[in-house]
């Protein structure tokens, strides 16, 4: 009876979208905490905000530099404290109400007055004096100090008429399609199934023009291998965060295209040069020998980034310069030949010989006035990169007479150690944004922890007046060319002090179904990434391959009916046989 019921019901369960237009399915490898753009902090959740809302300005697809979006143009006052944005007129929210300058004014003012509203993007308004909208087409932002970061505020602009009545931004209804569904981005959120998927429909009235697909689905995957399998079986159209092994396995597969793009992250070997907290008190248990810049320089000379790129990353990385990766070409520091610390074991040995580190009988050097030169090298046990890089680095340092003990630990343990300065060397790194400020700020004096060990977001504990001066200059400079010059000088200063050694910039590895999608807009062009951009370009620019591709969905579902039918038959037949056998057994044994 039940089986008959299931069989009868099957035709009803045919997916609704089979009759509709083109759907773009994206595998999400990271989780979603909130849809509310004020409180959404996890990466996938911020991507939802990028698709659903327009920003004041947006990093361009071409070069990831500030470009018009909600603001058509902007000017700064001579004292660089007042920014005036001309807001685009004639665009509408998805509920039909016009988008005006009052919406960004509301968004920023809410962040200035409501602590919860600062959860996700609070750092962008920390230097704001006031925000106002003198008329529908003009937005004026005044800052306390000159802030070049105002040209690229990574803050989704929400509709005032929807959000102003919501007094408590932690209210669960702010995570529902009823509230977040009113947007003006290229895709409009239509359905959210917690921990499972987010659905969007294309915004047909989007001011840049409607997207070429009708529906967008972000599907949560908790297992990378399962996601790769789903791409092969045409359950998703695009995936990212592939490992080199997965990427190589997908290369050359039928109907699958791969995308190797320059990444936003730098990997580095951080050196404990005698780190101090914000009160300039020494902290941690680093080897005091590393206070000697000649020793740090020798370590830098003993590391070969080319081998790291080729052997550790299998070629899926770029040779390093400064801490801003080459994907952000305007701010990336690529040292000239004379400035560069080259891989040269002989030179490294000579540096140490000259500094008085004498080699003992076992090949290990002695620190002048102290014991053997032994260093601990920490890394993330969870990252294959750290495991392999630690082997190479340990080998090179041994060649120059430094004994290295490798200590790969959990992410949390490494975090504890690095925050407390309890390391000699460790493998770390950070992701840069299109605006260079955040990654440069990680190496300023004020980023160091206070006396209680709290309040830190430093990467290296670096504290150098010259660097801080260059950092302040780039922050105050609104001319992009001059600002980039300061940013490059700051990177050169950091590299010259050998507080860290940048090892490489890992590539972003992505893949998509070439039978369903012909192309995506990359950022930057021509070879940047598709997903996890600073902007909506990748998914907005998705161009479907010919219409014939959409039919493969049906195959999967035909399979479902066959299998369900088979299960029903097995249950019925099996049950019958069992009942029969029972009777027969009883007869046999009586």
């Amino acid at each position: 009876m039940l089986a008959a019921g299931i069989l009868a019901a099957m035709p009803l369960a045919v997916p609704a979208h089979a009759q509709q237009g083109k759907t773009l399915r994206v595998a999400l490898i990271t989780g979603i905490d909130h849809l509310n753009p004020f409180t959404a902090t996890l990466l996938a959740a911020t991507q939802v905000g990028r698709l659903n809302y327009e920003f004041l300005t947006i990093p361009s697809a071409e070069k990831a530099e500030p470009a018009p979006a909600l603001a058509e143009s902007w000017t700064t006052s001579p004292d660089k404290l007042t920014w005036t944005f001309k807001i685009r007129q004639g665009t509408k929210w998805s509920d039909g109400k016009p988008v005006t300058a009052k919406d960004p004014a509301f968004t920023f003012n809410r962040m200035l007055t409501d602590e919860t509203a600062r959860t996700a993007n609070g750092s962008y308004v920390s230097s704001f004096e006031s925000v106002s909208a003198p008329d529908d087409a003009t937005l004026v932002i005044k800052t306390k100090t000159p802030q070049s970061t105002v040209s690229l505020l990574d803050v989704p602009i929400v509709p005032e008429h929807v959000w102003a009545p919501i007094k408590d931004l932690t209210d669960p209804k702010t995570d529902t399609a009823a509230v977040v569904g009113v947007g003006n981005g290229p895709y409009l959120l239509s359905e959210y199934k917690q921990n499972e998927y987010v659905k969007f429909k294309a915004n047909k009235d989007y001011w840049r023009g409607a997207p070429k697909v009708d529906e967008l689905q972000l599907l949560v995957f908790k297992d990378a291998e399962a996601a790769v399998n789903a791409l092969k079986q045409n359950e998703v159209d695009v995936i990212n965060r592939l490992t080199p092994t997965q990427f190589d396995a997908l290369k050359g597969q039928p109907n699958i295209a791969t995308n190797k793009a320059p990444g936003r992250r730098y990997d580095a070997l951080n050196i404990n040069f005698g780190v101090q907290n914000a009160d300039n008190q020494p902290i941690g248990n680093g080897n005091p020998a590393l206070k000697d810049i000649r020793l740090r320089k020798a370590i830098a000379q003993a590391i070969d980034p080319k081998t790291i790129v080729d052997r550790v990353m299998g070629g899926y990385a770029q040779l390093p310069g400064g801490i801003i990766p080459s994907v952000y070409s305007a701010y990336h520091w690529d040292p000239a030949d004379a400035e560069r610390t080259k891989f040269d074991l002989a030179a490294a040995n000579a540096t140490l010989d000259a500094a008085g580190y004498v080699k003992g009988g076992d090949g290990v050097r002695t620190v002048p006035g102290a014991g053997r030169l032994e260093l601990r090298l920490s890394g993330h046990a969870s990252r294959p990169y750290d495991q392999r890089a630690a082997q190479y680095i340990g080998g090179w340092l041994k060649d120059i007479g430094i004994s290295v003990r490798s200590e790969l630990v959990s992410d949390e343990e490494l975090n504890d150690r690095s925050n407390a300065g309890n390391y000699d060397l460790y493998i770390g790194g950070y992701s840069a944004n299109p605006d260079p400020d955040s990654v440069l700020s990680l190496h300023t004096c004020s980023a160091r922890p206070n006396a209680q060990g709290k309040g830190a977001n430093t990467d290296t504990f670096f504290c150098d007046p010259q660097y801080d001066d260059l950092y302040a200059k780039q922050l105050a400079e609104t001319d992009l060319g001059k600002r980039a010059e300061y940013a490059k000088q700051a990177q050169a200063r950091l590299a010259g002090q050998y507080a860290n050694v940048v090892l490489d910039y890992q590539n972003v590895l992505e893949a998509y179904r070439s039978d369903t999608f012909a192309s995506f807009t990359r950022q930057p062009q021509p070879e940047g990434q598709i997903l996890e951009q600073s902007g909506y370009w990748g998914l907005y620019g998705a161009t479907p391959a010919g219409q014939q591709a959409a039919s493969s969905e049906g195959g999967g579902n035909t399979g479902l009916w066959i299998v369900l039918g088979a299960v029903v038959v097995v249950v019925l037949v099996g049950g019958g046989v069992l009942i029969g056998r029972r009777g027969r057994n009883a007869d046999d044994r009586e």
Partner: protein
Amino acid sequence: MTQTLSSPDHASSLVDPDERRGGTGTLRFVLTRIGGALASVVLVIVLGFFLFRMLPGDPVSFMIRDRPTSPQQLAELREQLGVDKPMLSQFFNYLGGLLHGDFGTSYLERRPVLDMIGERLWPTVLLVGSATVLAVAIGLWLGIRAAWKHDSFFDRAQTGIALTLWSVPQFWLGLILLVVTNGVFPSRGMHSPDAAPGFLPQTLDVLHHLILPCLTLLAVFYAQYMLIMRSSLLGEMNADYLTTARAKGLRDDLVRRRHAVPNALLPTVTLVFMQFGMVVSGAVTVEAVFSWPGLGQLVYTSLHGPDLPVLQGVFVVLAGSVVLMNLLAELLYRVLDPRVRTT
């Protein structure tokens, strides 16, 4: 958690020797057991709080990883989360919250922990519950058959298969099933975004998603029921009362069903209840492979950071359900086995 369960012998020895059969004795027995269970839960709450605080890591620096954050923001964040307060005051805040049914707020997602557990409880109960029910049914049936014809080809083959599946890593089996079924079953989640609205299509859609993860768990789970059932039935096989029953001229089938199996079933009841207690703990790896939105996945993601309020909350819910099921097992045992009552 296996150790927390009283074995049947243990259960019977715990019964008060002075206890008389009748209302007051049973009442006292029930009250003692409930008291013991409550004491366990309190212990779990205290232990859970301090245990997870021994984990390394700083939740705040984990939360702001790779995001531009100013030192002022960091200070605000620490204050919001209350992680700067002394541990004892954090503990009493936590206890106070628990008394009001408040499990705290997740560090990572900043949502009430109870909501997060609530929305994941049902998927886990559905998945692990259905796999357990099927595993019990299939395991017991195979175990009885194997014991009754022990050393037969059926017995040896079934025991071999069960032991092999029992030793296979769950995530590996799950991935293999995903690859082998070649897209016939969905590879992620519990719902398809394309399923038509309405009760029936939605139910069928969930069943479609349920098949592979359920099958994976079933394959791994059923061996324990089969082997326990098999060995306890083997223990009864040569008992005198079975000879008597056969001598009365009963059919073999009836001897097995009415005499041998009910006696051999008792240890299995214990195991089944213990497993039902563990149902909510989910199956971390299987839930991860199939992106099943259950509690196991929540534990897995919360270990990073670590997200202490979530870990504590899940720990209390899991331990609470194990304690509750053990309590039920003890009470039910008294009903099922008259020997326990009359000792």
